[in-house]
Structure formats: C-alpha cells, structure tokens
C-alpha cells in the first residue's frame, strides 16, 4: 500500500500525485518509471517518475486520464492508497554535457521530460524546451520547465495559448535559425515522436525517444513491451524505455500500442459509464 500525500488536478485530465515511497525515492533516476496496480482488479500500468524527494521519501507522478485504469486512478484522493507500486524500473537516462539540447514533450509527456530537462541543465547544457498541448487548459508544468530551460516554448494545437501549431513547427523553426543542436529528447504520443524523429534524422541530430509500449510486469519477464530498434527486438521495460529514435520502428510501435483498442473501450465504458470515443 502506498499513501497518496498530495493530489492535485493540473489542467484537464492530468493529475499530479505525490506519494510516499521511500525506497523508490532513494534510488530513482531520471528516465525511470514505476508500475502501478492501483486496485485489486486493476492492470499493472507504467508511469514515469517525474520528480523525487529522497529526504521525505516521496515521488511525484503525473497521470493522464486516457482509459479505464487511469480513470480509476484519477478518482483517488489524498490519504488514499495505490495498492501496489514497483520501481524504479527501466534504465536511467544517460545524460552528459553535450552542448545544446532540445527537449520536446507532448501533453503529459511534458511532465515526463521534466526530470531529464532538469538533468541536462544541471549537467551544464544549453537547454531549449518545447512543450505541446491541445489547448490552454491542458498546459502543465510551465513554471517548473522555465526554471530548468534556457529557452522554453509552448505550442497549442488551437492557438488558445502561446504559439499556435505543433511542437514540430517550433522544432523546424529552431533548426532553421541555424543553431547547432547536439541532442534532442522527445517524449509524447508515438506519432509525435515519429514525426520529430523524421525531422531530426534529416538534419542528423542525435535523438532519444522514450517508448510508451504496453507493459505488464515491467521487469523483463513477459515481452509484452517488445519494440524493434535497429532491426533487433528489445524489451522496452528493461532495455529502455529510452532508445535512439532514428533506429526505432515507430510504425510497429504505433500498431502494438493499439492492440487492445476494442477491449480498452469496453473497460472504459464499464468503469466510467461514458463512451470512450465521445469523451473530451
């Protein structure tokens, strides 16, 4: 049982949880995640460790409501518990001083880029962050990201806040202005990561993507999370979740994460009484 110390709803459908988990807090590094089974009958789902406080023994998670499991988690309150939480899992990000770095986050992915953006900054890099959201009321972590970025940009699909457009528009603009970019980190919907990767490949900029494959155990035991990187099968939970984006078969990832679309719809409707396609 893991106690929820703090819960706050940031923007639409994105919930911040600060939870008591001293062992995970002590060992967590940027790029790692936890696996949560919130209730007895729940799935095990992976969530990135967005921040940690080793002294107080807490970790911070940002969870976006997208389906049955996350909808039920969204209903949890301060003082309640997650039934099970295991971590920190996955390989820590390999962050060094390389020069100029762009970190790109899409939606809740922006929260996931936060610990690494911070680590890039602390390692002495010049950091440009680009966060993309659907609209104004989806924006999260704006102030926090500003603090750890030399330049911070926000795009919204509908132009209701800051710059109208996609993160890829901003990325192209920065590349165009002639900056020498040494590394790009991208975390967000698979399709966004694919487009970013295509752009940076063209410009030969090293790019790292954090793959959001479907997981079960998160410890390398099942192979649910398999992805293809450089033509080889890898298990995202133990070999990743971060990989060289230019080597990733994103088309396969896109298909694999949609594998249970029908079942997910059924679960979501059962739990919320809402039609999944009709929401949002």
């Amino acid at each position, binding site marked *: 049982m893991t106690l929820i110390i703090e819960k706050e709803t940031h923007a639409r459908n994105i919930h911040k949880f600060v939870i008591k988990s001293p*062992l*995970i807090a002590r*060992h967590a590094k940027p790029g790692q995640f936890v696996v949560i*089974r919130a209730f007895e*009958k*729940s*799935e*095990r789902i992976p969530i990135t460790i967005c921040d940690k406080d080793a002294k107080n023994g807490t970790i911070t998670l940002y969870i976006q409501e997208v389906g*049955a*499991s996350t909808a039920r988690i969204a209903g949890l309150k301060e003082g309640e518990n997650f*039934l*099970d*939480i*295991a*971590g*920190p*899992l996955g390989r820590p990000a390999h962050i060094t001083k390389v020069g100029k770095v762009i970190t790109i986050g899409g939606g809740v992915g922006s929260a996931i880029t936060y610990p690494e953006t911070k680590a890039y900054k602390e390692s002495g890099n010049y950091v440009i962050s680009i966060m993309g959201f659907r609209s104004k009321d989806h924006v999260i972590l704006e102030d926090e990201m500003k603090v750890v970025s030399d330049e911070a940009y926000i795009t919204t699909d509908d132009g209701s806040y800051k710059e109208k457009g996609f993160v890829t528009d901003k990325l192209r603009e920065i590349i165009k202005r002639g900056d020498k970019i040494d590394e790009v980190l991208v975390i967000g919907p698979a399709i966004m990561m694919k487009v970013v990767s295509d752009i940076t490949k063209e410009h030969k900029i090293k790019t790292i993507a954090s793959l959001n494959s479907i997981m*079960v*155990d998160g*410890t*390398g*035991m*099942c*192979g*649910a999370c*398999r*992805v*293809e990187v450089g033509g080889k*099968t890898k298990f995202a939970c*133990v070999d990743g979740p971060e990989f060289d984006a230019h080597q990733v078969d994103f088309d*396969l990832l896109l*298909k*694999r994460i*949609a*594998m*249970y679309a029908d*079942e*997910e719809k*059924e*679960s979501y409707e*059962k739990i919320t009484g809402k039609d999944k396609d009709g929401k949002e």
Partner: protein
Amino acid sequence: MAKNKIRIEMPKQSAESRSKNFEEVALGYTEEMALLEAERCLECKDPVCIEGCPVNVQIPSFIKYIKEKKYAEAAAKIKETNSLPSVCGRVCPQEEQCEAKCILSKAGKPVAIGRLERFAGDFALDEKTRTCAVKFKAGKNSVAVVGSGPGGLTCAADLAIKGYDVTIYEALHEAGGVLVYGIPEFRLPKSIVKAEVEYLKSIGVKFQMNVVIGKTMSLHDLFDEGFKAVYLGLGAGLPKFMNLPGENLLSIYSANEYLTRTNLMKAYKFPEYDTPIKKGNKVAVIGGGNVAMDAVRSALRYGANQAMIIYRRSKEELPARKEEIENAEEEGVKFHFLVNPLEFIGDDDGFVKHIKLQKMELGEPDSSGRRKPVPIKGSEFLFDVDVVVVAIGQTANPVLLEVTPEIKTNKWGNIEIFNEYGQTSMKGVFAGGDIVTGEATVIQAMGAGKKSAEGIDLFIKSL
C-alpha cells in the same frame, strides 16, 4: 480387512465441461478414496520411494498416518521436509520421481503418492487443522530471500523453522513465482498457493512485495540493512523468442505473457478484471513442454475453436508430462507434429494472420538423445491463425545479475554455484532453482532451497 489392490483413480471434471472453465481439473480424493489408496502402501522396510523424492518426504510414515486417519499428523510429517505439500501433490512429475521408484510399480501400479500428499496437504490448509504444524521461534539473525517461487518459499520456511528472522523480497505483487503467474488455475488453484503462503506467514516469514532487487534495492543494500545472508531464487524469467520475421506482430505472445495475463492478472475474468487478452479462434502454441500444454489448454478455455500445438518433433518426443498431454487431448487440443515455423504474416493492422510452416522429418539422435528434426525442402505451407503463443522456453532474467558483477554466471546467464549448498561467488549469497539449473521443476527448486537453508545456517553459525 481385504487389502485394496487397485490404484484409486482421482475424480476429474469431465473433459466436456472442464474445457470451458478455468476451475481445477482434478478434484482430489475423498476421505474414503484416500484410505483405500493408503492401504496399498506396504510400508517397506527399505522405502525406495523416498530416494525418488528430491526432498526425501518420509512417504511410508505420512501414509501410515493417513491409514490411521491422523491427517493433520500426516501433513506435519510431510512438512518436516516439504513445506508445500498441496502444491507438490498437484504438480510434481511423480511418475518420474517418487512413484517411479515405488516397489509396486514393478508388479503393477505404484502407490498414488502425489494424490495422497495432496489429500493430506489440503486437509492441513485450513487454519483449524493447521495446529500440528511445526512450532517456530523467531531468532535474532536475519536472512533475506529474493524471489518467492517454490525455491524461495522453501528456503524461507526451513530457515524460519531453524529460528531465523526471514524476509522474502518479491518483484511482483503476489507471492509464488511461477506457481502464481505461470501454472494455470485449472492445474493449481491460486487459493492453494495463497494458503501455503499464509502458512509461511504463520511461522514468522515476512513478505515484501513489489521490490525488485537490483532496482528498488541492491544486493549490497540488503547486507547494509543487517541481513547476514541472502538466498537468490530468481527463477528463469526471460522468455525466448525464435527471431523469425514477423514475430512482433500483434497477438503473438510469449507463453510468459499469455499465462501472466491469464493467471496473475486474471484476464479470463475480463472485464471484471481490467487486464485484457486476445482470445482468438485459431490459436497456435509453438512448443511441446508443460508450458505449451498450459497455454494451449488456456486457449481452449478462452473459447478457441481450434487450440493447436505446433511441435517440430513427433509425439514421442513431447517433453510435457504424459498426464497433461492426455488431459489436453481429451479436452480437444489438436497436435501438429513435425512442423516448424519459418515466418509470421500479418494483416494491415499488424495482427498475425498466417504462420509459414515447414515440414520436418526425424534424423539422427542429437546430444539430448532425441532424434533431431530435419527440414524437408520445398514443403513450406501457410497455416491460418489469429493468436500465437511462443512456448519454446526461457532463460535467466538478468535484472539483478547485470548490476551485481560479483556474482559469477555461466554462458547461459545462470548463476554458478560452488558447493552443494548453492554458495555463489559472493560471500553470504546462495542461489538455487531455475536461476542455477535453467528451467526445471518445482520440487527441484524446493530441494535447492532446502539445501541452501542448511548452507545458510552453517554459514551464519561460522560467522
């Protein structure tokens, strides 16, 4: 009283009904049946059956208690050397172990030792009837056990009985290792594993779930916390794939994933439970061992029209237990022998649609003594499927070992041990079970856990 001479069969759910549910197939002896079967044991002076048991269960002694209707005593007798009788009574390959040695097997059929063990074990599962269980005293020296599979559970139980303060660390949310995530409910009900775990708690063993040693804590952290010794019962948890084209298509599972979704996550109760699984109409399971049988019989229970085994050798070479092969046949599983997959072909959405198979013939015996399958050129053909389960084995899970170079492993990634107690290359660290031997059996893992408990006791006393 006329002695019963006929081996008493165990009642089973009919093939017709059991192939549609996940409930236990074999229903267990009634008291009357157990008494009749127990009568058959000759209580040999020199009980050779015991030699066949990797943990030396005192077979005639426990059967004698059954004859006297002292069932709790029978269970306690078994538990002196085997802390999981209800599990072993169900899943031990008795036909190769204790029963193979029984003197009666020469003239006819051996005593049904496994079934009697199950009967006694189940009797004592209840709290009320557990009173005879071994007494324990919590000691001051503490030992950590990593992994809660049968090996870890046994090591922990034996150490607790010897007076150690034992904590089990387990990566998953439930204790039991393969017993909970691999072996299906219809062969080993999870309530049985739970009850055995409760028994361990009752003798003072502590459980820390959701802790991945090597990630959540390191092995060194355990020693820093004051543990005097550590037992590693990590199991063989890394699924093998064939590295064929199309193997990552949708609805192609490793047996581990397929069985974990089913057993640990209860996908067969979806949508009551949240974890989904692809049910499929034509399900092909590749492999011929116990794991493959468990997967294919699960597929049948999910409602597959055709649940099939694809095996590259012939029926004689199937490595699965005979009883389970027969059960599978009775339930309607189809077997395709002497065929080997070459490639998987999918539809536009990426779901598997066909397997390209190649026919095989048996050639010369290989190093394992089995005749080696040789491909027949030009015999390729397409086979329609909508779910595939790859059950060709597993290797050592590297999560802990890759961050602990002090522990020497062999070329397959299994831990090297340096004496009969499972001493590893790191001081105070012992190992046993599948992580040392590669995939083996429940009782072998338990035997190793037991040996290591002795070794750990000696080690701590020598400190």
